[in-house]
């Protein structure tokens, strides 16, 4: 799943930290699909995926020089992605308070072909029933993050991550009906 070895990733991140645009480009190319998957799982909307991914990678470029441990780059990137998605969902909720738009207006139906199987549709429906924090948890697990990494991303203990993950999986199972 990882496109680079740890040493290669560290070297690439160091180059990106020095402002090497080729390295920054390589990082974007390496992670864009995984970040897009994470954003889609979090927001359940394909129309915001590119915008949010762009925001996340721009934040990455602007803040990467402050990353103390380049080996932790992936956890750091997914923390950025999670926080950006949560902010977007919060803004969406606020917009619903101040503007006369309902949830149904936000959920634009996917164009034909975008949702190509009942199973995928069921997964999206099940994810939509979960809290954003639980969605983030499940999406991070799918990204191959360890419990320790997730606890670092969420700023909580490993035991709490395990407990929340168990509950999130139970909820997903309860709502997943293909």
């Amino acid at each position, binding site marked *: 799943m990882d496109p680079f070895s740890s040493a290669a990733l560290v070297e690439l991140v160091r180059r990106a930290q020095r402002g090497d*645009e080729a390295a*920054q*480009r390589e990082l*974007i*190319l390496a992670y*864009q*699909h*995984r970040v*897009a*998957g*994470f*954003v*889609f*799982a979090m927001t359940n909307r*394909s129309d915001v*995926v*590119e915008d949010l*991914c*762009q925001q996340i*990678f*721009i934040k990455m*470029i*602007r803040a990467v020089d402050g990353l103390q441990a380049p080996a932790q780059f992936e956890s750091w990137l997914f923390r950025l992605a999670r926080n950006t998605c949560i902010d977007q969902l919060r803004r969406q909720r606020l917009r619903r308070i101040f503007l006369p738009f309902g949830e149904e207006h936000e959920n634009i139906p996917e164009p034909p072909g*975008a*949702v*190509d*199987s009942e*199973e*995928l549709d*069921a*997964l*999206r429906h*099940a994810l939509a029933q979960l809290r954003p924090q639980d969605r983030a948890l499940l999406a991070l697990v*799918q990204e191959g993050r360890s419990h320790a990494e997730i606890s670092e991303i969420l700023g909580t203990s490993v035991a709490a991550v395990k407990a929340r993950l168990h509950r999130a*999986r139970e909820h*997903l*199972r309860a709502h*997943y*009906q*293909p």
Partner: protein
Amino acid sequence: MNTNPEQDAWSRLRAHAAARLDEGFPDRVLKSAHGCPPHVWVRLRAVAADCLRPGFADRVLAAARTRLEMPSYGSQLALSALTAAACVAAVILFHHHELAAADARNLAEWRQIVAAAQDLDAGAR
């Protein structure tokens, strides 16, 4: 042959209930029970990846470059604060200058009045 009306009713109830379940029911139950298989997550990621138009990385780099060239929010705020402070200082200075000029004018007039009064007093004596 079963002629018991109660048994008959139960059979009809079972048949009616069974007719509500379509052919794919067992598969659906099994899928639900086993949870979401990994290949569906892979498909979700693939659908999301398709949302990114070609040239995404170049667009991000260009946007990041534009944003880096733009003055930061902090510097714009500092410039606004500096402009406002300069305006307030100019107003205070102008007001102070006007006040001093008015005082000088009033004092000169009072001096004239005092001089005129003293002249009148001297004439009366």
